[in-house]
């Protein structure tokens, strides 16, 4: 009996280690693209960093931990950029980064879903991001489109001319570390 229990412990430990080591670490390349759009405003975030551990065959140990620099916002208009960084909107001086940390990644058919905590403007909310992953030789690309309600994060006035639902389009090419 002892032997069976011991074997089970050893096997499960090995399985856990094996599963853990299966997760591939990826390095984000400079060709990423983080865009946002809503009625009355659209643009990009130019600085995006973080760590990505992802295996398309084993999503259990996969994890995203990424950060966007709020000061890198570019709407294409100087006045809009200044407004976006001001206390009324992102308040970049007080909250300089937008952070997303995944807690669970699951495969859904040919795509994936990442559930995690999005921290923005000092407020943390759980959101689910659907995404796809395409392998390209020694690299790959993550693509996702999702919507965030800016009122959930107290960004801007609720009745402002800018739409409340912000569509985010994320394209992150990666290479194996």
């Amino acid at each position: 009996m002892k032997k069976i229990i011991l074997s089970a412990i050893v096997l499960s430990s090995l399985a856990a280690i094996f599963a853990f080591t299966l997760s591939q670490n990826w390095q984000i390349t400079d060709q990423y693209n983080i865009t946002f759009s809503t009625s009355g405003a659209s643009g990009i975030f130019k600085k995006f960093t973080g760590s990505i551990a992802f295996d398309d065959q084993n999503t259990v140990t996969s994890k995203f931990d990424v950060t966007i620099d709020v000061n890198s916002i570019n709407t294409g208009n100087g006045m809009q950029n200044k407004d976006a960084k001001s206390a009324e909107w992102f308040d970049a001086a007080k909250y300089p980064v937008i952070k997303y940390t995944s807690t669970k990644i699951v495969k859904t058919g040919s795509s994936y879903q990442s559930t995690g905590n999005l921290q923005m403007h000092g407020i943390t909310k759980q959101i689910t991001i659907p995404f796809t992953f395409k392998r390209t030789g020694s690299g790959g690309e993550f693509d996702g489109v999702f919507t965030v309600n800016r009122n959930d994060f107290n960004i801007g006035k609720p009745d402002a001319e800018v739409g409340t639902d912000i569509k985010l389009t994320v394209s992150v090419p990666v290479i194996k570390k």
Partner: protein
Amino acid sequence: MFKKSLLLGVISGLLSGIVSVIFQKVYAHSLGSDFIDIVKPVNIISASLFGGILAAVGFWLFDKWLKTKGEIIFNFIFIILSFASILWPLAVKLPLTVDTPELFPGMVIPMHFFPALAWFTLKPIFIKPQK
């Protein structure tokens, strides 16, 4: 009168275009952004020339209709329109590949006043003040 006005418009338009291009170079040298992909020198000179010709036609019409008061009203309208035109560089949305859109109005707004400046500077040479 129309010929003199048109000649003044063309020359002041060309002059302001050349000054604007020089200003663009100076701006690029000082601040590192010339927005050359958005405002090409040929477009600057064309727009300035167009402004000068438009001013010439406007001046001629005001002078013809309103006689002595025509020039005063024309000058006011020329400046008001120059001021109003700065709304465009302030509101324009540049391509997202442009890293510093904040610097764009600083370069373009002065250019919007160069045609009027050139017109007022050169006018006494081409059209003598009425006594």
